[in-house]
């Protein structure tokens, strides 16, 4: 395949100090981006500047520094809204991460809208964070979970989706992109189908928003959740988007300061969204750091990042599939997948694989990647996962491939 240069990857790498590290005598190769992404200098410096220059609590201080912090925090909200093309910053609630965002919907929307005998539709490729909150809700309300199965290639079984819709699912909670298979689900079409039957849709965008342009108006999703730390931002900050006036109709998730309009001994009233869902002192620097990460990614361009990742993924699948004894999971078409390549090699257990690759300075994830039902469906105890981001190079893929040959040698495969 003809390599098209999307941007100067070497220059981008210079922005990430951690990529200069030497691990076990070898240059550090970070291929665990689906777990968390590394942080560029621009984000690190933004946090540093916040602490040194305008650390203060927001929304309540009358003094200048607090006003600066409040303005930066709300500017970050506006950046998030523009980044995913929300209609208004009021559709953006800051949370700790994708997990908290989904739990918020399960509590604040689910408890009001899901009842006895109702169905909640999930898929077999969901992360635990998009399964367990629904199990808790279903148990509390006497509702049922319905799973859309997948093909052996890791593509959703569309007729099962249609069947569950026809049987009257109240909510469809689906990963935009799988953290194990890499499958990019056709959420836009699925949402359109779901809305025809009045089914609400939550998109778990933890693996998509960091890697490709995502437009919530184009998707027309009702909820969308993602995490800051997977997109070069700090940990402990994430986003829940809700369409239009959905937040208005929802009950509060956490009660406390900042989310109230008035508090009396026996009753209180709430601020309008998004503040209704941001009780207590929130992760102020996290939000500002996420804003800096959004600036950083936007400057390079999400379309270019997506193209870079698609090329490196295609290169990796081609290169790694030449390793004798390897099994690569997920769709074979790089167009239909994100920058995630999960595999097994002979009888090498993924944990042994990860230890051996670490000896070569290569960081991968091994295990079930918080997707136990998916591994049960695939009939495998675990996988090794290499996941790419904007700073990974073909040279790093080559070194991974060489390292796999070393593993084959050690295990005499």
């Amino acid at each position: 395949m003809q390599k098209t240069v999307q941007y100067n990857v070497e220059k981008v790498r210079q922005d990430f100090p951690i990529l200069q590290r030497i691990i076990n005598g070898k240059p550090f190769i970070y291929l665990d981006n689906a777990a968390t992404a590394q942080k560029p200098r621009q984000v690190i410096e933004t946090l540093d500047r916040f602490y040194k220059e305008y650390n203060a609590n927001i929304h309540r201080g009358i003094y200048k520094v607090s006003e600066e912090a409040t303005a930066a925090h709300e500017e970050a909200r506006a950046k998030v809204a523009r980044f995913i093309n929300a209609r208004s910053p009021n559709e953006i609630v800051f949370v700790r991460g994708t997990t908290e965002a989904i739990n918020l919907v399960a509590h604040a929307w689910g408890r009001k809208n899901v009842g006895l005998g109702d169905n909640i539709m999930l898929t077999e490729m969901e992360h635990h964070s998009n399964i367990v909150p629904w199990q808790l809700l279903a148990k509390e309300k006497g509702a049922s979970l319905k799973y859309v199965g997948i093909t052996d290639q890791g593509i959703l079984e569309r007729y099962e989706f249609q069947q569950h819709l026809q049987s009257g699912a109240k909510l469809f909670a689906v990963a935009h992109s799988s953290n194990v298979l890499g499958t990019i689900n056709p959420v836009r079409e699925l949402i359109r189908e779901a809305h025809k039957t009045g089914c609400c849709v939550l998109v778990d965008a933890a693996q998509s928003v960091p890697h490709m342009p995502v437009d919530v108006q184009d998707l027309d999703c009702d909820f969308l959740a993602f995490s800051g730390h997977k997109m070069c931002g700090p940990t402990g900050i994430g986003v829940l988007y809700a369409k239009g006036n959905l937040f208005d109709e929802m009950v509060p998730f956490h009660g406390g300061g900042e989310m109230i309009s008035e508090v009396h001994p026996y009753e209180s009233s709430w601020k309008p969204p998004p503040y209704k869902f941001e009780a207590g002192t929130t992760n102020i620097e996290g939000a500002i750091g996420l804003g800096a990460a959004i600036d950083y990614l936007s400057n390079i361009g999400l379309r270019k990042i997506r193209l870079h990742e698609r090329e490196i993924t295609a290169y990796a699948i081609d290169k790694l599939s030449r390793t004798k004894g390897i099994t690569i999971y997920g769709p074979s078409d790089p167009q239909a997948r994100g920058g995630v390549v999960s595999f097994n090699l002979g009888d090498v257990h993924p944990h042994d694989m990860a230890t051996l690759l670490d000896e070569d300075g290569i960081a991968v994830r091994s295990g079930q990647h918080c997707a136990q039902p998916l591994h049960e469906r695939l009939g495998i105890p675990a996988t090794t996962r290499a996941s790419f981001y904007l700073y990974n190079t073909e040279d790093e893929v080559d070194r991974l491939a060489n390292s796999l040959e070393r593993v084959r040698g050690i295990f005499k495969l």
Partner: protein
Amino acid sequence: MSSIYSEIILDYYRNPRNKGKLDRAQIRAKDTNPLCGDVIEIQMELDGDSKVKDIRFNGMGCAISQASASMLTELVKGKSLDEARKISKEDILSLIGGQLSAVRLKCALLSLKVMKTGLYNYIGSLENAKEELSSL
């Protein structure tokens, strides 16, 4: 960098010793390493002098967990319960050889934990051994 994956470890992984089940085991225990998904089950049959007449393990998981379980069974066979109880973390690590990260240490010591859980349960002092077992 020298690898923990020596010929010996791989030989034990591919050709496990004492793998299987016992019909007349007095001691049985099973545990998992939730992080890795390693599973180890150990069964021990005692003779009249309370020595370990036979021992078997069953399980699945990484090479470190499976090889160390195999090695442990060889070490325990023929020992008295008191001798088996005294087998330490260090004994297992010296059998494996090489350095392990904190996470992988759990893989290496899973079988020792299972063996001791079964043993303490059998002699009725599982409660008192909680601290020792949680250190493995």
